C-alpha cells in the first residue's frame, strides 16, 4: 500500500491573471489538450520550415532534468521543446523572461497555454521563486528549458552563462543536459521581425550532474562554467 495524499493544484484559488504568471501553474484537461495541439503544430512547423534534425537524443534522461542551450532566436525554446517526446515533452517548461512574455494578459495566456512557459523576472527573481521552481522541478518531475546567457545573442556568438542556473541544480540529483542549436541565428536573427526558412540542427550532449556541487555563490559559478563549456564543446567545427 502506498501513502496517498489529496494534492490540490499548486495554483488553487488564484485569480486567472495571477494564475497565468504563477510558478505553481498546473494545466488540467483543457490546458493539456491545448498544449498538446500546440506541440504538434510546432513539430510540423519545425519539420516543414526548418528541416529540424536532432542528434544525441539517446542522452536525454527520464524527467526531471534541465536543458541548457545557446540562445540566438525566439525559435530556440520551440526547437528544444520539439526535440522532446512523451512525458518529457508534456512536462517541459521554458523559463521565459517575464518582462517580454508575461506583461500583458493575452501574451501571458499564450505563453502559459501554448508554450507552457514559466516567468523569470530579470534581476528581480526572488529567492522564494527560485525555491518554488527548484522544488517543483524535482517533486513534479518537470523539464526546464533554460538559456543561461540571459538574452538572445545579437551576432550568433554565444555569451557567458549567468550563474542563476546553479540555483536549480547545485546539490540536487537533477541532471543538466547541454545542447547546441545550430542555424537559429541565420533563421531568425534578433534584427528580423519574422523568421525565414533555414535548417535547424539540435546537438544533444551527455547529461552533467551537480549533486556534489555546493549550493552557494561559488557552486553556482562552477555550474555555469561547466555547463557553458559543455555547450560550447557541442558546437560543430566549421
Amino acid at each position, binding site marked *: 500500500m502506498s501513502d496517498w495524499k489529496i494534492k*490540490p493544484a499548486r495554483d*488553487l484559488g488564484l*485569480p486567472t491573471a495571477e494564475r497565468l504568471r504563477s510558478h505553481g501553474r498546473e494545466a488540467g*484537461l483543457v490546458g493539456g489538450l491545448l498544449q498538446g495541439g500546440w506541440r504538434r503544430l510546432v513539430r510540423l512547423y519545425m519539420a516543414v520550415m526548418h528541416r529540424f534534425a536532432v542528434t544525441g537524443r539517446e542522452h536525454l534522461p527520464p524527467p526531471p532534468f534541465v536543458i541548457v542551450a545557446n540562445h540566438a532566436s525566439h525559435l530556440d525554446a520551440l526547437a528544444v521543446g520539439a526535440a522532446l517526446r512523451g512525458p518529457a515533452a508534456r512536462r517541459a517548461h521554458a523559463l521565459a523572461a517575464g518582462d517580454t512574455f508575461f506583461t500583458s494578459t493575452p501574451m501571458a495566456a499564450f505563453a502559459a497555454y501554448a508554450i507552457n512557459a514559466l516567468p523569470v523576472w530579470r534581476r528581480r527573481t526572488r529567492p522564494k521563486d527560485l525555491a518554488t521552481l527548484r522544488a517543483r522541478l524535482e517533486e513534479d518531475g518537470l523539464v526546464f528549458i533554460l538559456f543561461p546567457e540571459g538574452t538572445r545573442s545579437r551576432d550568433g556568438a554565444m555569451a557567458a552563462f549567468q550563474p542563476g542556473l546553479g540555483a536549480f541544480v547545485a546539490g540536487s540529483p537533477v541532471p543538466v543536459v547541454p545542447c547546441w542549436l545550430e542555424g537559429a541565428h541565420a533563421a531568425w536573427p534578433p534584427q528580423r521581425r519574422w523568421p525565414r526558412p533555414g535548417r535547424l540542427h539540435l546537438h544533444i550532449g551527455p547529461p552533467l550532474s551537480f549533486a556534489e556541487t555546493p549550493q552557494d555563490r561559488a557552486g553556482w559559478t562552477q555550474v555555469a562554467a561547466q555547463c557553458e563549456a559543455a555547450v560550447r564543446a557541442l558546437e560543430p567545427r566549421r
Partner: protein
Amino acid sequence: MRGWDIAFGHPVTQGLVAATIGILLLAAAVIGALTVTGRASPALRRELWLRLASWAVLLPLIMAPILLGREWVIAAVTLLGLACLREYDRATGLFREHWLVAVVVLGILAVNFAALDHWYGFFVALWPLTVTVIAVASIPLDRPAGYIQRTALAIFAYMLFGAGLAHLGYMANDPNYRPLLLLLVLAVGLNDVAAFTSGKLIGGRKLLPATSPNKTLSGALGALVCTTLLVAYVAGLIFEGTPMDSTWKLLALGALVSIGGQAGDLMLSSIKRDIGIKDMGVLLPGHGGILDRFNSLLLVAPATFHLIQFYIGWGLDAPTRILTGGP
C-alpha cells in the same frame, strides 16, 4: 405573447419571481438601513453588500433558463456540472489524471444528453456505465499506486456533478416543470439564509464544529422548520389535485429540500476541511467558488426527483427519445 404566457403561465411561477425581486429589494433596504444607521461593522456591511450583489447577478442567471425552456435548463445544468467538476478536480488533485477527468466530462455530457433526449432508460443506465468506464480508464496506465483513490475521486465527481445534478435538467421534460424547479432552486438558497439568520438570532450549541465552525444547531433546526413549511405550502399550490396533494407528502418534500440542502453544504465543508482549503474558487465575490454556492443543490436534485417520481412521475405525457427516436 405566447412565449411569455408559457414562461409565466403558472400563478406560482409569477408569485416566485415576484417574491424573489421583492426579497432582493427588501434585503437591499435592510442592508441600506444598517449602513445609514451604522449599526453593523464596516466589514460585515461590506460582506453583506458583496453577497447581495452576487445574488442579484446569480438569481437572474439561475432563473432565466428555467423560464426560457427545457433546452435552456439542460444546457445550464451541463455547464454548471462542468464548472463544478473543474473546481473539484483542481482542489482534489484529480485534474492530474487527464484520462479520468475526460471520462467524467464525457459522462456529464452523456447524462445531460439523455435528459435532452428524454430517454429515462439511458439516463439511469449511465450511472453504472460511466462508473464502469471510470473503473477501467486508468488501468492501461499500468500505475496501480493510487488506483483506488483516483477512481473513487472520479466516481464521486460523476455522481455529484453528472448523475445527480442532471436530475434537475431531466425535470424540465415535464411540461409543468417551471414552478417546481423555481421553487427548488429558490428554496435551497432560502434554506442557507434561514440557517444563517436563525443561527445568528438564537445562537447556542455548534452543530458540527470540526466540519463547519460557524453552523449552529439552532440554525439547522430553524432552517428545517422554515424551509419545510414554505416548500410544503408552495408545493401544495403546485400539486393541487395530484397524488402528491397530501399534507404528509408535501411536508416530506419540504424536509427533504431542507435536509438535503444542509447535507450538501456539510458535505462540501467536509471536502474542504479534508483538503485544508477555505473556498473552492474565487469566481463569486462573497460566496467563493461555484461549488460553494451550488453545493446545496447537489443532493436535493436526485432526492426530490425520485420522491415525486415515486408518486407522480416526470413528463409521462411528453414525447420521449426526441433525438434518438427509439422505442
